[in-house]
């Protein structure tokens, strides 16, 4: 069951809602590989992407997800729009609302931006990343991938490594995974993993071997240099040797069938060694495909549950 106007984060989603999305995503995934299954069920839907921050895969993934379901998908080039003339987010949203947009997909550098937009528009709003808060569709595709390979969440040991403090991916995954019964460990240097993250119901550690001991899933996160003001560690050489993961560490501590994940883009040789990224346990490329499937499911569910949106005045 899924009845919501917006998808803003995993913090407020129930276990049942998450499973509804994942189940529909499995169905949607077939449409990616087999063009004959692509449909026009969202042909009355108009979708706009509003990206205040750069993105390759998330934006493309949303646009294709809309295309595969027959929706009209437009990108508002934020850098060439009235945003540059100082238009407020709410005003931009209300303008798009008047044009009959059904779904607005927003990425923004500030926490809570998607929430304030959602509060002020009739269209459904999908949070494609807000500040250091949440990136729910990334977490949902991660959950989908984990479920695809591990067939369960209950009792799984999932370790997320790297720049946790700036990571909306880590946070959304922590909210989702703990709801579904997995044991989540967040690991990285103490300057990048705050102890107060424990309030999300996760373990926090700077001991990398301990963090990946018995891990069923190891997810690496990129160091977000663009968000660093005071360098939280001396240099990349020290980082990769003390906090990076290579095959040797994995072999010694993690489970043999450990799943290696990464939301991309990857800094090769920093958080994960290249041998790990390209190794047999890596599903990093599968995650990308699953991302399209999960976003198709979300667009379909939101369009069906928000009868108010889209110019229906």
């Amino acid at each position, binding site marked *: 069951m899924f009845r919501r106007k917006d998808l803003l984060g995993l913090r407020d989603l129930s276990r049942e809602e998450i499973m509804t999305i994942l189940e529909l995503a499995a169905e949607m995934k077939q449409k990616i590989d087999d063009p004959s299954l692509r449909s026009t069920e969202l042909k009355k839907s108009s979708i706009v992407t509003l990206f205040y921050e750069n993105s390759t895969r998330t934006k493309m993934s949303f646009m294709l997800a809309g295309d595969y379901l027959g929706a009209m998908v437009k990108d508002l080039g934020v850098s060439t729009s009235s945003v540059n003339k100082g238009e407020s987010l709410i005003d931009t949203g209300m303008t798009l609302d008047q044009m009959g947009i059904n779904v607005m997909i927003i990425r923004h550098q*500030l926490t809570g931006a998607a929430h304030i937009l959602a509060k002020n528009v009739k269209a459904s709003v999908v949070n494609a990343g807000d500040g250091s808060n949440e990136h729910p569709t990334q977490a949902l595709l991660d959950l989908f991938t984990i479920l695809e390979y591990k067939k369960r969440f209950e009792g799984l040991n999932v370790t997320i490594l790297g720049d946790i403090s700036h990571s909306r991916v880590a946070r959304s995954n922590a909210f989702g995974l703990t709801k579904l019964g997995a044991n989540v460990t967040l690991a990285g240097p103490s300057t990048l993993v705050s102890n107060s993250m424990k309030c999300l119901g996760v373990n926090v550690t700077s001991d990398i071997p301990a963090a990946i001991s018995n891990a069923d899933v190891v997810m690496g996160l990129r160091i977000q240099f663009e968000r660093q003001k005071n360098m939280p560690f001396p240099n990349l050489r020290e980082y990769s040797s003390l906090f990076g993961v290579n095959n040797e560490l994995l072999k010694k501590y993690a489970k043999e069938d450990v799943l290696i994940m990464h939301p991309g883009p990857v800094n090769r040789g920093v958080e994960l060694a290249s041998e790990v990224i390209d190794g047999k346990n890596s599903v990093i490329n599968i995650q990308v495909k699953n991302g399209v499937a999960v976003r198709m499911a979300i667009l379909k569910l939101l369009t069906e549950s928000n009868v108010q949106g889209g110019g229906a005045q």
Partner: protein
Amino acid sequence: MKILIKNGRIIDPANNIDKIADLLVDGDKIAKVAEGITDEADKVIDAADKWVIPGLIDLHVHLRDPGYEHKETIATGTRAGAMGGFTTVCAMPNTDPVTDNEILVEYIKMKAARDGVINVLPIGAITKGQQGSELADIGKMAQVGACAISEDGKSVSNPALMKNALRYAKMFDLPVFDHCEEITLAKGSMNAGDRASLLGLKGISNDSEELIVARDMILAGSVKAKIHLCHISTAESVIQIKQAKERGIAVTAEATPHHFTLSEEDITGYDANFKMNPPLRSKKDAEAIRQALKDGTIEVIATDHAPHHTDEKNCEFEKAANGIIGLETALPLGIKVLVEGGWLTPSELIAKMTVNPARVLGIDKGTLGEGMTADITIVDPNAENIFDVSKMASKAKNTPFGGYKAKGKVLYTIVSGETVVENGKLLK
């Protein structure tokens, strides 16, 4: 014009008075405080079951004039003050242009005399343009009536310059109001802690305040100057202030109603009406502030009344302006939280909003002594007061207290013998 206030509970902490009596105003002065005054008067106010208190004094108010008149003006801000029972407010210098010379101090005084309904005392900036590089015209501003200097909204980051400011202001007996914040540690939009982690907001840690509290008390001590610390919000700051006082440093401190009433746990979403600087801290910190008010470590309650336009609050939380309005909610919150909560007696609460701030400024106000200027407020302390933001006199509506159930209503505000608020309504 004579006003006779009958049968009120006269609370005058400066004179150690808390009793039922009458008070006679003659012209702009308090003529007599006694039982059973029978003098003829032009107006008689029945104050039975009401508190008759010195007009409230707020050391920390942003009137936004000149430069930000879309947020508040001297006309609207002083009316908000009057409705809240304040007869004197100190106006912070973060105007545009910054109040850093005597011309701007004169402008604010002139505007207040023309458009205002209560006393406005301008505060000058510590440095030119609040840029932190050279001293503002401190002496000139003192000569034309600046009541204090403050960098407001930030600290003077260069300690040598801050030390000079303390030493220089001391010559003019001008108090230095210190906003304590080490900016490199304060790059967030709410308190650093579990709630920030939950909401995905970057945090402002307690040490950002405590570092400057410690630094500036040390500087004040070394030049034997007075220092007044604005809006103290953390438990550790309180400990430091207490210890500094024991060592004989001339430090005074203020706390805001929102810091003694709310905590970070009241922030449940991205409503920027809960965003201010310093941020709402932990429950433990809020408790320490109440305790410090009780034991006297913090002697002043000031509002940090910070009006903003709706558009500056109804936007992305991290982008939204800091601060909330406070003039019309301060006293009812004090009665509800501090008096009903058992932290302060009515007289202790009133002292922190009248005579104590007057002493920080070194002005002869904040008491009901005979011969004093007749700045008087009459309050019904028993009235339920559910805050209705739409009815507030401030031009701004940015407060998290809409719908909050507080206690006490201001019925009369009398400024220099002239009634500005009557039966809870503005007369002008």
